[in-house]
Structures are given as C-alpha cells and as structure tokens.
C-alpha cells in the first residue's frame, strides 16, 4: 500500500475574499458596509461607503489571480506518518504579480509550514489593480496537503477506525455543570479543534484518530485545566473537568527589591500570605518566613533583619511611618491583610528614597478598593462598580470589610474594622490569678479609604488607626521584682490621615506625593514608674521622575518628618545594652525626664536609573538627611546594579525558553539617628551622632524552570559610629559613638512560584552579627545573632476547595546571658526589694538549644452562587516541641533550667465574603 502525495489546486480563504469582495462590491454600489474591512492589502484600506448625494467616484480594485501554482514537496516524515494539513499563509504580491514574501499565519508543524512557504514564493499572480493601476497587496492563502492512493496500487484499506472524545465541565466547589466553557483539543498534527460545552456542561468530539490528545478547558473567571487524554479506536473516552474560580483579591508583592532601585527582590503573592501555616494569614508575619529575617522570641512581632536590632527596621504605610506594627507586640498586625496591595520588604541596600534607618525597610501599600463585579459562583467579569464585603472571626478577633463604588464616577471606597475579643475570656483568667481587672486587654483597628483612579493618575485619601490597651491591678507582685505590681497599664494608639497623589505629568515626567498627619500616644505605667508619649506626626514626601534620555531616568525627592512631641519618663536608670543587670527596680527611686520639643528631619535624595543595555541596569543615588535635634547632617551615597547574564524568555519567541540569570549587587551608606533614651540628658548622653552602616551585597538569581527560581545573595554590613556604652572620664558608663560591628551572611531562596496547585519555598540564612563597645573592647555576639535559619514551607491545593500546607523551621538557638559560674556567687540578695539580683557573666554568651517547629494548616472553601465561605485550622507546633526560649532560674539563681516556648496551639478561623 503506497500513498502518493497529490496537490490540491488553489484555495483562497473564502471569508477574507468575501470581505474584500463585499467591500469592493459595496464601494461599487455605494451601499453601507457592516464595518471597515481590514483586508490587509497594503495601501488600500477599504472603508464603509457613506451615502452621499455628491459622493466622489470610488476606486475599482481587482484582486490578484494565480497564474502559476508551485507544487510543494510533501514532508517525508509527515507522509510516512500519514499526516495531512492545511497551512494558512499571508502572501505579499508585488506590482508584477510576484510573491515577495510568504508568512505562515497559523503554524501546523511537521514540516508543512516550510514546504508551503517554499512553494508559495514561487507562485505567480496577475497583479492586483486599482482603477487599472497595478498595486502591491497582501492576501491570505491556504495551502492544503492531502494524501491519496496512487493509481494502480492496491485499494486503500478502510480509514482507521476512529474514537470519540467527550466529557463534562463542572465547578470544582459545587460540581455544578458549567455551560459555555471552551474545550480545545490539540490534534496530533498540532491543529486545534474547539468545542463549547452545552447547557448541561457537556461536550463531544467524534471521529478522532487514535492517539493522545491534549485537552484544555477554560472559561473566563476560572482557572484553566489541561490534561492529556487517549483516544482508542472504536471507543468513547470520557473525561470530566472541574474548574476552580480564579482567586480574587489583591496580589500582595513582598519585594526585597523593586527593580530597578534595590538589590534584593522577594515576591510573595496574596495566595501565599493567606496560606503560610503558623501566621494565621497575617501578611506582615509572613515576612518572618523569608531569608534574612531572624526568628523572634516567642510570639513577638519583631522584625530582626540581617543581624540588626528590631529598632533598626522601620515600617511604613505608603511612605508614612507607623509607630507600631503589631497589636500588643505580636498578636496581629495593625493593618489587615485584606487591605494590602503590596508589601515591599528591603532587607538592606535599599533605595535612597528611604533613610534614617540602618537595618531594613518594610513599606506596606494599601490597595485601591475592589469593585470588580463577579458572576455566578465567583466567575470574574469585565464589569466594575460592584460592592464586596467580608466578615471573619477567629480565636482572638473579628473583622469586617466593605468596599465598592461611590456615587461619583471613578471614585471608590473601602471601610474596615477589627476588634479583639480576648478580653472576654482573658479577664476571668486574670481575675482568678489574683489580679483586679480595670480594663481587660483589648485592641482594635480601623481603616477608611477613598480612591480616585484613572489611567494616568491616582488620588487616594485614607484614615487609619489602631488602639491597644489594658489596665489591671496586680495584687500579687512579681517575686523577682515587686516593682511590677500594683496598677499596671499599657496603651498604644495612633491614627493617620493620609493623602496620596500619583500622576504622569507627561510621557517623561512622573510625580508622586504623600502627606500624612496623625497622632501617636504611648503609655506604660506600673506603680510610680511611667512612660508617656504624645506625638503629633507629620510626614510629607514628594518625588519627581524624569526620563531624561532613552535608558536614563532621574528620580529626585524630598522626605520630611516633623513631629512636635511631649514625652515623660519616670523610671530608674535602666541598664545600657551589654551592661549587667543592675538589680530590681523595686526600691530604686525613679529619675524623671520630661521633654517637649519638635523633631524636624528633612531629607533630599536623588537617584538615576541607567539602563545602557537591555541587560544592565545601574542605579546610583544619594541622600542627605538633616536632624535638627542632633544638629547633624548625613550624606549617604548608594549604588546598585543588576545585569542579566542570560535574559529570560521572550514572549515573542516562547519556543526559545532561555532561563534568566541575573547578577546583582550594591553598596551603600546608611545612617540611623540615636534612640531617644540614648540622647536624653537624664538617661543618656546628649550630642550623639547617627549610627553608620555600609551595606555590601552581591548575588545571583537563576530561573531553573519557569516555575522554580533560585536566588543566592551574600551580604556584609560594616557598622561604625555605633551608639554603645563606654566609660567616661570618671569611669561611669555613658553612651558614646565608639561602637563598632559587622554582620556577614548568606541568604538562599529556592522558590516554586504559585501554580494552580502548589506554592512553596526553602529559605536558608547563614549569618554572624558581632559588636564591640569600643575599638579596644573585646568582640561579642550581638543579642539577635542567629547563625542558621532554615525554613521549608509549601501548600497544596487538593481540589474541591481543600488546601493543605505545612511549614517547618529549624533555627539556631537564641542568645541569652547566664549568671556567673561557680565558684562565684550567682546572685546577691537585694534586701530592699526582698528579691535577688543576678550576677551576670558576659552578655549574650550562652547559645540556647536549636529551635525547630512544625506548623500545619488546612483550609476549606465553599463557593456558592453569590458568596463564598471558608474556614481554616492552623496548628502551630504540631508535635508540641518544647522549644527553649530562655534561661530560667530559681529564686537565688543557684539552679538553672530552660524556659520553653509555646505549646501546640490550634487556631480556627471562619470567613464569609461576597
């Protein structure tokens, strides 16, 4: 049996010709067209005729006609495989009727495309004319390759028996049939066959040759599903597909660096933040799962970034500083995840936009209200102007959110609030422990956003705030220090009113402005000791971006911080960092400091984004900070660079699929003003200047696959002019700028980017952070040094609305300070307080045992027609590891043991949203 190729004569796409012919006919008789006809004929765009009394004479266009057909060589491999194909070409025919160019419009592969092109270039046409004048044109042409039996050979056997492929499409959550879904079957020759599901959600394709077929099912608003099915001769292969809605809501980007202005880029999407076990969906707490961020003690909400103290990292909300990030130091963050648009996290070497800090930066951006309308079962639509709401409750708080359009065009709003309810169950616990509760611990936060967004600008007004407080009377003072007894109160509150305006003034000039005013109140008192701060904070930023040349953009801006404040501290002198315990506070008379002044700290910065080639980006910058309170001005130059050693996939040539390799690095100077107690005339040393740090970093990012990326970065921080304790002329310890230090480390992140089913990463940090109080002092490990930090986490969508995730951490133990070993006495009896005062050895010289913990989380979501309900169970410390968080001693410090951390803690939450 031999199959010989044959050729089919000329075939011209009927639809295209019909369009052209119709246009010509209509232009001839003046009748109006259904619309403009993009015939693709160069130099001749036919427009719909407009009826007019005195219409000018319309041109007469004659299409080219084929005069010579060239037979293409049938691709041998395709012939052997018995394949047939139609190749759709676009032919450019010149004024002489020659084909000067042949492009394949729809590739079919298997050698057919090349063969058709070669043949088509040898076609000959009569040229197209316009009013008799030859014109060049571009026309579609379908070249068909079919196989027939050679005359004289045996009769072809019957065509292979075919099979049928059929199935249904359902909603993943409810198993409801989904009508109108597109089912695309890729035939073995690569051509697609498309069908649409009917009212019952079913589809069918008959007469398919046996073999494996790729089937793709998609529908707007749902995540596409692909699978491979096998068609067997004489059988029906049935497959049912279940589609899950595309997850709504914001995509939160946690960026170590937002190119092009920083070195390190870390990206966490909304789905990841919502599902990382052990974080209860708190966006800011998810930062603690990134490399370069050390594990804080217990449940503390501290950000310990690259070996720096928590006070060395600042948190902004859209450029405005906030005084606290977590309620009660770690319960939940003050801005709910649902209102976040992004979190930019810069562990170091950040842009000159930021200053006054030597560690890291977290800049949280609030999102524009969501008004995207959804269809049944959460399917996305193109419509806007709809309302959305959410109500959630878990073991410690409840929250509400409502967002939607305002009656004025392009204006939207969002309002949200949260209140804890731990006071309901904690109050009885405290009272049973002997305390009298005046105000049980309670926190709340609130946010209001009003947004106006156009294609070129965004104006946003916000008001947000937070309040934490409790007041109890401790009638059983702490035996270790009876000063912590009696009336104990704690309260922090702040509010901000903020306005942002972003716009493009022209194609090459952009402008971003932010003004924020607000008030901070912090109060802590116990017995006759207190700390009270009232602060009226004004922040203002403005930045211009100028594209001054191709590949060169200049950003320059002003950054103001103005804050009249009133602070009162009444406390005995606390130990300075690294100083041994000075004994119980109970019987020590307090000192008081009362200051009323205004912080005035303006800054100016400039950065140039230079991209001399498409691979290289260099960003030099500088920042000048002035602090009126210290009378110092600091100049901080910085430069970062990124070079794509291998560029990533080109969307125009996806078949090439190179994997991006980027080298990155930077060096910069960073200043951080001293803390309040360090310069206070009563408790500190006035006249101190800013801490100085030089950050160095060098790293590489490597795309391993489209889904997996590896990033490795080394960093070094050189710390000078650090505020530390040092003896003065009389031998007493005071603060001075003689401190030195360094931090060296390596971060690695192997990340599987979120796909339909899975996301996860492995993060590892190796670091060492040391300090010296003076140049001649011995070096010691910094309080927050953590040598190893390994985190492995992942979450997998099981389907039907179920998702399961886990996080495992193994971290070097924290540092603690032990008492003196024998034969020295470990403590002295401080007779005035009735307690013991430990006699401590070298500060932070004791490394606690290794920490390890497993957290698991399971989620279930039900999608209903007009709303969605979800619930989660998040279990921290699943195997109840008794992790050591500190050293514990008996009353006279003669016996030592370990203080363990949290036991297994389950957390349950439920949410309803529409």
């Amino acid at each position, binding site marked *: 049996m031999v199959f010989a190729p044959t050729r089919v004569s000329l075939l011209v796409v009927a639809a295209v010709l019909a369009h052209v012919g119709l246009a010509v006919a209509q232009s001839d008789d003046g009748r109006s067209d259904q619309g403009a006809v993009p015939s693709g004929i160069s130099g001749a765009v036919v427009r719909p005729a407009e009826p007019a009394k005195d219409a000018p004479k319309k041109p007469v266009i004659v299409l080219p006609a084929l005069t010579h057909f060239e037979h293409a060589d049938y691709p041998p491999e395709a012939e052997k495989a018995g394949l047939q194909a139609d190749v759709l070409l676009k032919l450019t025919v010149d004024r002489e009727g020659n084909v000067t160019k042949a492009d394949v419009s729809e590739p079919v592969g298997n050698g057919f495309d090349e063969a058709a092109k070669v043949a088509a270039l040898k076609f000959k046409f009569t040229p197209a004319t316009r009013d008799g004048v030859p014109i060049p044109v571009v026309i579609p042409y379908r070249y068909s390759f079919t196989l027939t039996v050679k005359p004289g050979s045996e009769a072809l056997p019957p065509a292979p028996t075919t099979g049928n492929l059929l199935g249904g499409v359902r909603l993943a959550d409810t198993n409801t049939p989904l009508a109108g879904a597109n089912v695309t079957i890729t035939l073995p020759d690569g051509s697609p066959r498309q069908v649409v599901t009917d009212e019952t959600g079913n589809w069918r394709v008959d007469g398919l040759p046996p073999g494996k077929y790729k089937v793709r099912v998609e529908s707007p608003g749902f995540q596409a599903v692909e699978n491979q099915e096998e068609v067997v001769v004489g059988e029906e292969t049935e497959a049912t597909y279940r589609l899950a809605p595309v997850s709504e809501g914001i995509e939160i980007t946690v960026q170590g660096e937002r190119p092009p202005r920083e070195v390190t880029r870390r990206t966490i999407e909304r789905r990841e933040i919502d599902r990382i076990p052990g974080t209860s969906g708190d966006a800011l707490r998810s930062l603690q799962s990134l490399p370069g961020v050390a594990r804080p003690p217990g449940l503390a909400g501290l950000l310990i970034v690259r070996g720096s103290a928590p006070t060395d990292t600042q948190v902004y909300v859209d450029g405005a500083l906030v005084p606290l990030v977590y309620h009660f130091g770690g319960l939940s963050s003050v801005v709910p995840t649902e209102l976040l648009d992004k979190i930019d996290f810069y562990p170091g070497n950040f842009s000159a936009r930021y200053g006054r800090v030597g560690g890291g930066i977290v800049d949280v951006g609030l999102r524009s209200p969501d008004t995207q309308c959804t269809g049944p079962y959460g399917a996305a639509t193109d419509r806007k102007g709809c309302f959305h709401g959410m109500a959630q409750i878990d073991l410690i708080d409840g929250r509400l959110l409502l967002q939607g359009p305002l009656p004025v065009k392009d204006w939207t709003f969002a309002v949200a609030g949260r209140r804890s309810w731990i006071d309901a169950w904690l109050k009885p616990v405290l009272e049973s422990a002997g305390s009298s509760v005046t105000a049980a611990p309670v926190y709340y936060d609130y946010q209001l956003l009003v947004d106006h967004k156009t294609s070129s600008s965004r104006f946003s007004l916000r008001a947000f705030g937070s309040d934490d407080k409790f007041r109890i009377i401790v009638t059983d003072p702490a035996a270790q220090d009876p000063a912590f007894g009696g009336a104990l109160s704690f309260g922090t509150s702040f509010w901000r009113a903020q306005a942002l305006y972003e716009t493009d003034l022209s194609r090459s000039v952009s402008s971003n402005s932010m003004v924020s005013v607000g008030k901070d109140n912090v109060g802590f008192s116990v017995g006759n000791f207190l700390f009270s701060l009232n602060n009226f904070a004004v922040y203002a930023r403005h930045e211009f971006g100028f594209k001054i040349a191709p590949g060169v953009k200049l950003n320059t801006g002003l950054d103001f911080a103005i804050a009249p404040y009133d602070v009162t501290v009444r406390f005995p002198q606390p130990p300075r960092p690294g100083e041994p315990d000075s004994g119980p506070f109970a019987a020590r008379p307090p000192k008081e400091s009362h200051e009323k002044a205004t912080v005035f700290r303006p800054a100016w910065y400039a950065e140039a984004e230079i991209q001399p080639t498409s691979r290289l980006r260099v960003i030099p910058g500088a920042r000048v900070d002035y602090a009126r309170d210290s009378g110092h001005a600091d100049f901080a130059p910085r430069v970062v660079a990124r070079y794509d050693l291998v560029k990533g996939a080109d969307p125009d040539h996806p078949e090439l699929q190179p994997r991006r390799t980027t080298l990155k690095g930077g060096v910069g100077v960073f200043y951080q003003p001293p803390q309040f107690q360090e310069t206070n005339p009563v408790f500190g040393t006035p006249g101190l200047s800013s801490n100085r740090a030089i950050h160095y970093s060098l790293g590489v990012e490597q795309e391993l696959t489209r889904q997996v990326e590896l990033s490795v970065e080394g960093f070094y921080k050189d710390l000078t002019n650090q505020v530390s304790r040092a003896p003065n002329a009389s031998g007493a310890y005071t603060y001075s700028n003689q401190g030195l230090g360094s931090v060296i480390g390596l971060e690695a992140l192997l990340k599987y980017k979120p796909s339909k089913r899975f996301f996860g990463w492995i993060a590892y940090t190796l670091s060492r952070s040391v300090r010296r109080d003076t140049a001649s002092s011995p070096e010691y490990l910094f309080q927050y040094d953590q040598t190893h930090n390994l985190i492995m986490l992942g979450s997998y969508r099981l389907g039907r609305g179920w998702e399961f995730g886990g996080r495992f951490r193994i971290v070097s133990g924290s540092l603690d300070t032990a008492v003196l070993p024998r034969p*020295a006495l470990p403590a002295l009896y401080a*007779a005035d*307080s009735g307690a013991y005062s430990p006699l401590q050895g070298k500060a932070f010289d004791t490394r606690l045992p290794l920490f390890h913990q497993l957290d698991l989380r399971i989620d279930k979501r039900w999608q209903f027609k007009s709303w969605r309900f979800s619930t989660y169970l998040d279990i921290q410390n699943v195997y109840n590891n008794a992790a050591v968080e500190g050293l514990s001693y008996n009353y006279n410090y003669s016996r030592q043991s370990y203080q363990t951390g949290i036991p297994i803690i389950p957390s349950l939450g439920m949410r309803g949203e529409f």
Partner: protein
Amino acid sequence: MRSAIRGVLARCSVLLSLLSLGCGPGFDPPSELHSLRVLGVQKDLPYAQPGQTVNLEMLWQDASPLAGRPIKVAWSPPCFDPVGDLYYACFSDPGAFGSMLGTPDVANPEHASFDVPADIISRRPPADGSNNAPYGITYVFFALCAGDFTLLPSSADTAFPVGCKDANGTLLGSDDFVAGYTSIYSFETFSNNNPLIDGFEFRGKPVPKPGFCVKDDCLPLDGSEPAVDFDCNDPNHPEQSARCVPTCADDGDPKCPGYAIRPTIDQANAANHDQDDVSAKLLGRKVGEQMWINYYTDAGGFKSPVRLLNDATSGWNDNYGTEFYAPKTPGLSRIWAIAHDNRGGVAWSGITLKVQ
C-alpha cells in the same frame, strides 16, 4: 520619636512575648525556706541625710537540715557613690571587703552602723538640669557563711569578691552561703520611715502576745534559734490553740485548706502612708509609696507569697493577707511577714504555728 516608640514597644513586645511562653520548671517558691536565708535588712533611716548615722539590722534564718550549726555573719564597709550608682562597681576595690573576713561582732552579728559623709551629695557629678533631686547613695554588703569567709580572685567585673569555705577548704554554695546588699539613698531634705507592724492576724483574728513577734521580739524566729514549742491544750494559755492546725497530706499545696494570715498594719498610722518624696517632687503632687509584703515559712506554703500593700496610683490594698497551707509533717511551722516600701523601708513580724 519613632525611635522612642519603637524602643519601648520592642521591649514591651519582648515582655509580652515572654508572657506567652509555655510552662517553666517547677522550682521551689522563694517563700519556702529550706536553706540559709536572709529575710530582711532594716535601716533605722531608710533615707539618710548627709552626716547622719545609720543603724542596720538583719533578719536571717538557717532553715537547712543542718540548722544549729555555727553561722558567721559579716558586713562590708560602706561603699559611697560607686560609679554609675551600680552596686557591683563597689567590687572594683575587693580589698575593701577584706574586713568581712575579720572577727565579727559576736554579740550583735546582725547589727551594723555607719556614718553618712557630709559631702555624699555634693561630691557627685553636677545635676543634669532636670527636676530630679540630687542624691547620694551608699551600699552596704553583708554575708552569712556556714564556714569561713575567704577572698576570691576576681573572675568578672560583677563577681562578689568574698566566698565561704568549709573546714576542708571547699567553697560552699548558695544553700550555705548567702550574700547581699542594701542601699541607703541620701537626699538633702527627704526622709523615710519604715513601715509599722502592730500585730498579727491568724484565721481573721488577732494573735495575742506572745503568740507573735515584731522586729526585735522575733529572736525565737531569728538565726539558728529553734522554734519555741507550745501546748495547744495548755489550759493556762487557751489562746494558743488558735495557732494549731492539722497536717495536710499535700504538704503545702493549694489542695490543703488555706488559713488566712496577715500582719496587722494600720493604714492610718503615718508611717504606713508616707509620701514618696522623690516622685512627689517630680509630679508636683502627693504620691504614696509602693508597698508590698513578702511571706516566708519553714514548713508549708502560701497561696500568694508576695502581696500588694499599697499602690502609688490606686492606693491601699486592704486585702494584703494571704493563705497558709499546712505541711504534711507534724511540728512547728514558723511564718514571717516582711513589709517593704519602695524607698528601702522594711519591717517584719512573725508567728509560730503548731501542725499536728
């Protein structure tokens, strides 16, 4: 100001996180005496003005199984205005502690005195310009040793320079060697009274003399003296039966019945509502003292071993007593109540119960 807020909140965050920690180890509470212990040091002038003489008295107890053994008590010379007001700065002159090795005053080992220099305030660095009252500070160290004192080589800036060795020259540990310090602040015009304890209440009723002791009367409850036994059924002293309680198999646990106890402290007495002069000067208004009571026993336990007596903000807490849980072993149980104020004032009283 961000730095001030972040600094305070960082410390509070750590504190709050520590409050969220899991269980700690089961150490014996400090209120239960099982070894050589100092319970209080009283100064007749808790705030002493320049030129005044301060007399100190110590209350201690050897509650170890070896009670009755000889205990040496020693005091250091006063240490005036150490660098940074830090008590361990006094250790920079270890030789000054050599006198502790000498022969103690065997007649009154629990007593000492010193004179406050006239320039204790004026010789300090100038004031910082704030409203804080200028002051001077004196530290006096004391030690109790169930052996012989010895000077130790300096191993660290904070190491106490004196040790205690037994007859074999082996250094003794915290169960047999106790050291401590008391501080005496000196202001130009401020003074302070010790709290005043008038009596003792047991099961809600006053204990008649000699059923309780106050300060110097507490000799039977002091040092190595054994407890004085009494007859619960003595017809000549029917009041003694009120101080008799049954044993409890749980040995001082909260499962045992609790017996209300407290020293009698009269709020109306001026000594018991002194003004905290330092805080008052800072605040510009009257401020009371912070006062609390430490309870101790050598047999049994307490529901709350430390109780608030007066809070500078919320005032007097009349519910300053606690509950005593009897031990499982019959015998005598001695209880001490040490009242403190936050300006170095101390007073003590005690009672003996019979557990049968």
